[in-house]
């Protein structure tokens, strides 16, 4: 065989295979090394840490015993489950109704609703929680005060410092997940399916209930699971709303383990079951999505005609406005108003108005100013790293360029099931100690953000790649173009828009990331969310609001720019889990 090849006169090189193998090995090696560094090592540290004592680092199972026998640690688990389940149910209800209204009916203002859902998606829930404190704190909340003023009642009806309050706020900012899943599925159902039912004599409520919704049920369930995942991983909102209510959830309990006395290994043990639950749910969600594929089978080229709702259009719009009003209009008004007051408790009244907090954030307070800069730089760096690695991994995996590429894909998706706070614990355990001390440097946050949002970037890249027929690449290969050159000349130019969209979907959450940042920053690497969180603990809500408004202004400016440049596809391009 070797002789045969060697003796071939026309063979350009006798060692083709070896070279190709070497390149594959190198490619695989680099990708694997980066992913191991970003994902495997930090996660492995959680498991390693969980079986080591916090006191003397000896091997032990006592952390698990301690974490899961004491009632003060068990109650938060129950609270988390209640919180996440209820939030997922509420979010799923609104997400489904809105997606149906927007994609299947002639309800007025559909595009505006769609935009508002996206804006809710871009808003971090801890900011919403802060705003809802202004609105619905039991005694001082503006809505309660208005209620008291109008009705003369002793107390207002709302108490945001409660489990119900936290459920409400989290649902407000996670319903876009169900919305995105359900609406992308709904948009694939050709009207023919519904028309067939209509021809058989059904009216729209029955058609919706019997035909439309069952068709998108897997997508709705997938979105619901994602909402659950988000809710159970949420840190900021419970910290702001549930600690005052005397309730811990898993994430705030994890945070406490990191307070003095610091017990990172106990925290790791406490985190492991949560990790298993989220991983299990994710697998379930993936199976649902796979089984739900039939929704798209008949979806090619079908005409989609919205239901004519007649007089029901306006009540439906009313229902759709509830979540958008609660997630956007009220909170942003509250944040803006607070950021412009000297003391928020006195409300936005003359004499209490000032723009000092903006001056403070942008000029006077170097820490806040530095944090804004850090946020932008770190988020940009993280988004770039995540996009490059995701694109690369997705390419290698999807085109099966190297054996074991699917393992890479799996690793790239793995952080999806890791709540930010747990990822941070892993990062801290892995990279706050020799040989590689990233803690204290910008890289700690950048790499953590990149890892955290790698799955988003990955699924974006993957679906973008899937839209490119592999034959376009193979055509170039047969014409003498190497894999690398093909990627540069064919694949990448075709992907450019998707790459920008992917970058943005990693950038936006990085910009507003709190749960991993609270563990990983040091004051010299603080980002906006760190400052917001730190300020909020002493009730400095006015500068918190000013910073929040600035952060969201930056976010929305970027989204607007992207929208202008790339159109609607940029928004919701992460509709796939």
């Amino acid at each position, binding site marked *: 065989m070797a002789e045969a090849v060697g003796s071939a006169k026309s063979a350009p090189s006798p060692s083709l295979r070896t070279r190709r193998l070497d390149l594959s090995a190198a490619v695989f090696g680099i990708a694997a090394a980066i992913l191991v560094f970003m994902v495997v090592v930090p996660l492995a540290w959680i498991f390693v840490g969980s079986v080591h004592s916090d006191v003397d680092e000896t091997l032990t199972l006592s952390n698990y015993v301690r974490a899961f026998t004491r009632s003060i640690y068990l109650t938060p688990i129950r609270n988390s489950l209640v919180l996440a389940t209820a939030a997922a149910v509420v979010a799923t209800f609104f997400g489904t109704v809105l997606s149906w209204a927007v994609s299947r009916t002639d309800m007025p203002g559909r595009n505006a609703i769609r935009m508002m859902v996206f804006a809710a998606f871009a808003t971090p829930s801890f900011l919403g929680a802060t705003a809802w404190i202004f609105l619905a704190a039991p005694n001082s909340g503006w809505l309660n005060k208005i209620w008291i003023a109008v009705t003369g009642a002793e107390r207002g009806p709302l108490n945001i410092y409660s489990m119900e309050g936290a459920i409400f706020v989290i649902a407000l900012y996670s319903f876009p997940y169900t919305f995105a899943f359900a609406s992308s599925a709904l948009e694939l159902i050709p009207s023919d399916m519904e028309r067939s039912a209509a021809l058989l004599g059904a009216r729209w409520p029955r058609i919706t209930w019997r035909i439309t919704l069952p068709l998108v049920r897997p997508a709705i369930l997938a979105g619901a699971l994602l909402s659950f995942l988000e809710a159970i991983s949420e840190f900021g909102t419970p910290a702001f709303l549930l600690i005052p209510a005397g309730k811990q959830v898993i994430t705030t309990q994890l945070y406490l383990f990191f307070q*003095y006395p610091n017990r990172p290994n106990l925290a790791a043990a406490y985190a492991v079951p949560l990790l298993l639950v989220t991983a299990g749910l994710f697998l379930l969600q993936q199976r649902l999505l796979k089984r739900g594929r039939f929704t798209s089978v008949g979806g090619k080229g079908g005409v989609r005609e919205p239901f004519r709702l007649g007089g029901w259009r306006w009540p439906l719009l009313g229902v759709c406005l509830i979540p958008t009003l609660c997630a956007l209009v009220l909170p942003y008004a509250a944040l803006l108003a607070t950021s412009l007051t000297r003391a928020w408790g006195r409300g936005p009244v003359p004499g209490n108005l000032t723009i000092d907090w903006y001056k403070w954030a942008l000029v006077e307070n170097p820490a806040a100013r530095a944090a804004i800069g850090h946020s932008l730089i770190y988020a940009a760096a993280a988004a770039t790293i995540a996009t490059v690695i995701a694109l690369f991994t997705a390419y290698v995996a999807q085109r099966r360029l190297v054996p074991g590429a699917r393992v890479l894909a799996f690793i790239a998706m793995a952080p999806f099931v890791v709540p930010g706070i747990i990822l941070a614990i892993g990062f801290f355990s892995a990279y706050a100690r020799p040989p590689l*001390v990233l803690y204290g440097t910008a890289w700690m946050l950048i790499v953590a953000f990149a890892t955290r949002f790698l799955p988003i970037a990955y699924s974006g890249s993957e679906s973008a790649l899937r839209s490119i027929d592999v034959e376009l690449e193979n055509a170039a290969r047969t014409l003498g173009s190497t894999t690398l050159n093909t990627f540069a000349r064919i694949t990448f130019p075709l992907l450019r828009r998707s790459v920008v969209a992917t970058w943005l979907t990693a950038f936006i959450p990085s910009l507003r990331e709190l749960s991993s940042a609270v563990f990983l920053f040091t004051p010299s690497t603080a980002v906006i969310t760190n400052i917001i969180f730190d300020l909020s*603990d002493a009730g400095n809500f006015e500068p918190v609001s000013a910073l929040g408004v600035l952060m969201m202004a930056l976010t929305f400016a970027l989204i607007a720019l992207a929208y202008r440049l790339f159109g609607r596809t940029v928004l919701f391009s992460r509709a796939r889990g």
Partner: protein
Amino acid sequence: MSRKTQRIDRRAFLRLGAGALGAAALSPRTLLAAESDDEQKLYAEAKKEGKVVWWTSHYQLSAAEAVRDAFKAKYPGIDVEFIRQTAQVVFQRLSQNLKAGVKEVDVFASTDESHYLKLKSQNVLARYTPLGESNLPKVYRDVDPDKTYHTGAIALLIINYHPSVSAPPQKWTDLLDPKWQGQITLGHPGFSGFVGNWVVAMSDKYGWDYFTKLAKNKPKIGRSIFDTVTDIVSGERKVGAGAENASLESKAKGNPIDIKFPSDDSILCVSPVAILKDAPHPNAGRLFESFFYAKEYSEALAKTFNYPLRSDVPAPSGIPIEKVKYYRNKAERLDKGIPEAIEKWRETFGV
């Protein structure tokens, strides 16, 4: 490392020299001149380092900003980077840094005195006698005979309340009255050093029973002791176990809040300050710590409604600290007491 030792040696040598020259006839004036000389040298060294990094939980953000501004006014060319966080949070971050070998902070200022006992036992604090410590009232000098930490701030924990309350609580035990149900705001000992101090003091005075009863009144638990001010000012809650400084500052801004020195003792917190052995800017750290005993520091504190350290600066409340009936926890008691308090707090209040 060697440079640092050298400098310390030189200063020691200077002191020795001064002593030898006229130990008997050492007038305050020459001492002052010598100190000012030291100060100028230190300033020059510190200026080369360019900045000082300071982590504090001592007082409100505004006070820390005032201190920073006063320092920068006195010593142009040296920047002050600071963070203000609750005591347990800054301590936790410092512990993480130490464990990871990250050298970031020069001057560490916590409200939990026990933190310094731990840090000292870990041998991570620099031994240093700040210039001008002699300006302090005697009770605050030499909190550590080994000179690894020094008094950095004093604060009083008091009852704060909304002026709409006609009969504010007079003493801590009044908070147990069921009429305050749903009206009380507290910080969290797991975050705030002040609150930890208060919890230890209360449980030493009245036993843990005090908190079991207090829990029945369903207090709102924030994180920082300063959360109580926000809650009262906004009308969210009526009374709190708060700090005098932030309450008075807020009152001065025209917010609806007032304070009451409880008849069963205000709690005095003496909050230390220390320089880290591995400080990245050791000289700036020393200059900054010495600044704590300069008049400008006390003035900055008084301006932001904190008790000044120096007796030549009047107290913002008008009541000098000596006149206040206070209770003070011993550092050794806090060392065990605060972690215990946090655990028990969890069981009693659920968070």
